[in-house]
């Protein structure tokens, strides 16, 4: 029983990260119908922003070597500011990598490639400025909270519980915003049909920028939290999550917000169920599971089936 509980916590804590990451993908996909491959780079940037705002010093390999804020901010303030910084960067990416192609009504594949290019440039910029070395956010960032919690015989790190709670909170807030607010409804209208939404008086371009801002904020938030949980392992920190989150996005149903969260948790649990001795193969197990699920339900867990009129 203890072991099952441990597996459950292990799976949910990893799944919460996948879910947070995939939410950003989902938002952009639901509006533009393309995958924003720069999302992983923005996630990485969020971790670096958080580190710097906490008063961390830049190592010796980057152009900013030795740079440091005179005073660090409290973790939660730094995290939110990092999220806002990432929102700005994400809006900038939209203006550079997506906007021009969208206005020319280019193929979605082109936007996918430009986002990939923008992501690579961003990651390399981070390496030039911050160097290649890893950084760890200060251990006491969560204040007086203990490092590890014992929950019913299972051991889990506190930061991972925080990640689960934040993931759940973001899901609730995002769903409320999308379903109850004027902005959220306008965004849904743009996602349904940007031209019709424009005819109804909705500023589609502004809504798309808002979508990128929210997606960037979520990327920054998750980057900062994962940075605290696992350390920032270098400029390529977010790349590994990108592929996994892509699978989560598809499994959940393209464009489905609750689907992304549910799929993230399922993939996390599938990985956790792999015995420790074989966990080097957990990606294969997770993706085999994904493959099997999609054979049974091609539209994803909570996605809508596409009806073709003939």
């Amino acid at each position: 029983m203890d072991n099952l509980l441990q597996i459950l916590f292990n799976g949910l804590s990893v799944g919460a990260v996948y879910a947070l990451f995939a939410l950003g993908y989902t938002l952009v996909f639901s509006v533009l119908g393309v995958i924003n491959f720069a999302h992983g780079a923005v996630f990485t940037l969020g971790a670096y922003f958080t580190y710097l705002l906490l008063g961390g010093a830049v190592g010796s390999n980057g152009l900013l070597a030795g740079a440091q804020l005179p005073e660090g901010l409290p973790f939660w303030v730094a995290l939110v500011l990092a999220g806002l910084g990432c929102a700005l960067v994400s809006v900038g990416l939209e203006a550079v990598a997506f906007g021009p192609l969208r206005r020319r009504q280019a193929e979605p594949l082109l936007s996918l490639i430009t986002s990939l290019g923008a992501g690579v440039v961003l990651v390399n910029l981070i390496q030039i400025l911050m160097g290649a070395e890893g950084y760890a956010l200060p251990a006491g960032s969560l204040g007086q909270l203990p490092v590890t919690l014992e929950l019913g015989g299972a051991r889990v790190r506190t930061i991972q519980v925080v990640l689960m709670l934040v993931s759940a909170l973001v899901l609730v807030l995002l769903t409320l915003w999308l379903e109850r607010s004027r902005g959220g409804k306008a965004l849904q209208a743009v996602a349904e049909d940007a031209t019709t939404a424009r005819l109804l008086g909705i500023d589609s371009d502004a809504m798309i920028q808002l979508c990128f801002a929210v997606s960037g904020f979520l990327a920054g938030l998750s980057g900062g939290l994962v940075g605290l949980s696992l350390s920032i392992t270098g400029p390529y920190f977010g790349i590994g999550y990108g592929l996994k989150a892509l699978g989560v996005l598809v499994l959940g149903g393209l464009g489905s917000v609750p689907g992304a969260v549910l799929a993230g948790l399922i993939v996390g649990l599938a990985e956790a169920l792999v015995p420790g001795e074989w966990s080097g193969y957990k990606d294969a197990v997770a993706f085999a599971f994904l493959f099997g699920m999609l054979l049974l339900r091609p539209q994803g867990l909570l996605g809508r089936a596409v009806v073709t009129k003939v």
Partner: protein
Amino acid sequence: MPSLQWPDGSTTRALLVAALVALAGCRGSDRGATSAVKLDGGVPVGAVLALTGNANVYGQDQKVGLNLAQQEINGAGGIAGRPLKLTIEDGGSDEAGANAAMTLQINRGVLAVVGPTLSQQAFSADPIAQRRGMPVVGPSNTATGIPEIGSFISRVSAQSSEIAPLSIGMALKLQPNLKRAAVFYAQDDAYGTAETVIFQKALAEKGLKPVTVQRTQINDLDFQNQITAALNLKPDLVVLSLQAVDGGNLIRQLRELGYRGLIVVGNGMNTPNIYPICQRHCDGILIAQAYSPELATPANQAFIKRFQASQGGAIPPQLTAQAYTALQVIAEALQRLEKRQPLAGADLGQTRRSLMQEILGGTYQTPLGEIRFTPEGEVIQKQFYVARVKMNPTGNGGRFELLP
């Protein structure tokens, strides 16, 4: 029905011609092995380092060592009066990047290559060098079987089987009652898979059969599954064959999840770049090393002085010392070769073959101590060490403290 859109006939022909020209170009570059040595701007030597990707922390350390060696060599008159011209190519952290960088260096006409950084990359890129007759000196490849790739492949990094067992011996010396070892290794990394075999053999020889062997992947960041599975078996020794980034992360999570026993790590974590990742949790880990800053030879003292002058007084890491040594070996071999057979106007392929013989035939006074090579290209080194990581109280920095 959707169909692939092919260009019209004329475009197709143009593409075919372009492809043929490109192929001809490839053949032409192979023929480069029969062209003359080009000494414009200096004696050309190349390097293939992991400057980007997950292994970039190693490449950055190595770049510092190569640049220092180049300055030293050229400051002392270069190769018979000509400067040594070093070209560093980024091989990324995977096999494809290393292959491309190695091919680029060969086609560029360099006389020898230092690199690639990872054993995993060497198993892919070194066969290319072997086929094209390019001397290679591996600065950090420790997996079993690297020099055996071919007659043009050598290394200055002693293989794991020489070094790794020393740290197991030291762990037992510090805590003779160790009974339960847990082993972790990256199963998709040539270095990790080779080193864990050596570690497990050393453990078995000491009567410490592992209670669990946990497999990870080189890009893993979250190890909660493996760690909790291992901790359930109450290990009193943890042995890791992982790279710096994943290893540092695993140690941090291991300590945070309550493990308090000894940790032995392999050569992949032999870099100060682990300090920012595991911070105070790095304290106390044991590691066997092929380089010690405390080695009191003139070559090492001169190297340390030069390193500290350029790096603000820091202590040189092993990877920097090994990269420095690799270029020193090539430079000294070039100097001997130049005396026997002038490089200017010499046949490139023949010069590379002769240089490889010179590399293997020499004895070198280096920061690693005196080194030589076996006829197969394996380094023969006299001194190895075991160090314990000593972090400073803030956890922001530390050092490898040598153990007697």
